[in-house]
């Protein structure tokens, strides 16, 4: 469908994130500056200072405290936003787990940046991927419009399934690069994103203690009600992630009906229908892969792209359904589970194994620490894999694109 375009702004990914938080009418922003995320919260602090956004900006001395403030604010019923990157995100690590375990719908931006050491401020996805198991939903964006739109979707998803959402976008490649972004009117956003209604918990009229010591086994509380033990709470968190798969899809469908744009929900694809060779990646790299796929098609390889939008929950069934016809899947990871392989690649291998699919799956590590990666290099990697399969060679080790060692 076509929806009337109100206003196109040419802005960075960081500005798109800040605009989304503004239009989502966040109540509280708490953040600590870190490159390449800082311009997001600088913009929000300006909006709040000048009265454009009616919210509290709470300055803190660290990312750990930033997430602590977000947790408190979300628990008392505020819509909350923060953003971070790399070392800052790592410093937040302990509180990320508290946020998810408390089932608080915090939305944060992660402008993806390489982890130290050695010191780097440039892009890869190691920071967010390293936080995989904290219980957060992680969505990856491929351009600035998707960043803006995914933040709005993120609040809906978070508030519906009561899990925090991390919207991930590549540092510099998206965070500092300007692109046209359609910014809707406040009323349109309000119609899509209703005000946050609290499921929990801090209220002076009914004082309570959240996250008291919870023992292994269920126990009676002071009123004699049998309450969950630790495992019951954790099972419910897993169940919420499972439910989130449908909710992520629905949030995108609804988004399309409000704004005329869809991003595919859990995954998206490019020329996938008849593809037997599939390039799979997340974020801006997956956008680059579409150019590679087009080139490969010109050379007679039936290539397509399957883009991963939701990394957690991992849409195993959706990926398997779309890869049923694939003979070769080439996965590009911008991070690494050291001692094994690219995190998306190893998850995909397990997912397809579970779904009784056995295409050849080749993993490539690309673009660590901001190493430039061009479509022609992705094309060459796929050609290498195609040749490998033709020669029926043994297990292919993980490739490192553009490594000069």
């Amino acid at each position: 469908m076509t929806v009337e375009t109100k206003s196109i702004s040419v802005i960075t990914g960081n500005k798109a994130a800040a605009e989304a938080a503004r239009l989502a009418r966040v109540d509280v922003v708490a953040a600590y500056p870190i490159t390449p995320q800082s311009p997001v919260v600088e913009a929000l602090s300006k909006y709040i200072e000048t009265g454009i956004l009616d919210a509290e900006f709470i300055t803190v001395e660290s990312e750990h405290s930033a997430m602590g403030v977000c947790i408190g604010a979300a628990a008392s019923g505020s819509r909350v936003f923060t953003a971070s990157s790399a070392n800052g995100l790592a410093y937040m690590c302990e509180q990320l787990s508290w946020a998810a375990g408390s089932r608080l719908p915090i939305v944060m931006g992660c402008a993806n940046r390489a982890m130290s050491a050695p010191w780097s401020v440039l892009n890869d996805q190691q920071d967010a991927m390293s936080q995989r198991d904290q219980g957060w939903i992680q969505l990856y964006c491929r351009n600035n419009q998707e960043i803006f739109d995914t933040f709005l979707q993120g609040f809906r998803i978070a508030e519906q399934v009561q899990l925090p959402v991390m919207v991930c976008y590549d540092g510099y490649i998206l965070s500092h690069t300007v692109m046209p972004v359609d910014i809707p009117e406040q009323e349109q956003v309000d119609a899509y994103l209703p005000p946050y209604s609290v499921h929990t918990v801090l209220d002076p009229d009914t004082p309570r203690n959240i996250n008291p010591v919870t023992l292994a086994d269920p126990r009676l509380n002071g009123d004699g009600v049998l309450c969950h033990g630790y495992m019951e709470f954790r099972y419910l968190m897993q169940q919420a992630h499972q439910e989130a798969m449908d909710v992520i899809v629905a949030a995108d469908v609804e988004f399309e009906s409000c704004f005329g744009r869809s991003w595919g929900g859990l995954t998206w694809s490019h020329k996938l229908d008849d593809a037997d060779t599939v390039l799979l990646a997340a974020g801006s790299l997956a956008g680059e892969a579409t150019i590679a796929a087009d080139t490969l098609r010109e050379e007679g390889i039936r290539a397509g792209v399957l883009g991963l939008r939701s990394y957690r929950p991992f849409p195993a069934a959706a990926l398997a359904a779309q890869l049923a016809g694939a003979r070769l899947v080439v996965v590009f990871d911008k991070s690494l589970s050291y001692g094994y392989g690219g995190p998306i690649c190893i998850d995909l291998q397990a997912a397809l194994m579970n779904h009784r699919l056995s295409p050849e799956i080749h993993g490539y590590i690309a673009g660590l620490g901001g190493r430039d990666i061009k479509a022609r290099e992705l094309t060459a990697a796929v050609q290498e894999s195609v040749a490998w399969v033709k020669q029926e060679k043994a297990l292919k080790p993980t490739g490192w694109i553009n490594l000069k060692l």
Partner: protein
Amino acid sequence: MGQTRDCGQKTAMSWPCVGEAGRTGDWRTTRPVVDPDKCIAARKDKIVCMQCWMFCPDNVISRTAPPEIDLEYCKGCGICVQVCPSQAIEMRPEHAENAEASVMEEAPCDS
């Protein structure tokens, strides 16, 4: 043990009430038993001494003569035994036969 889903919680929480953190009595492996023949307060039938009442970290010992212990919430730490100047309290194993012989002569909690 039944099922927990009726508690309706997604976030672990408690609210102010007696035993807010749950019935800590189920942590206990040994229980304190007061011997009224040795307890100063019991012998004088007066609110005296009360060291056990003062030091119990769970606030489950009554300020009475003799002091009474709420076994629903006594976590069995044994601090009362340590502070009693007349060795009037001893810890007895839970689930052992002699655990039944509470000097308090009250039904023990159902744990």
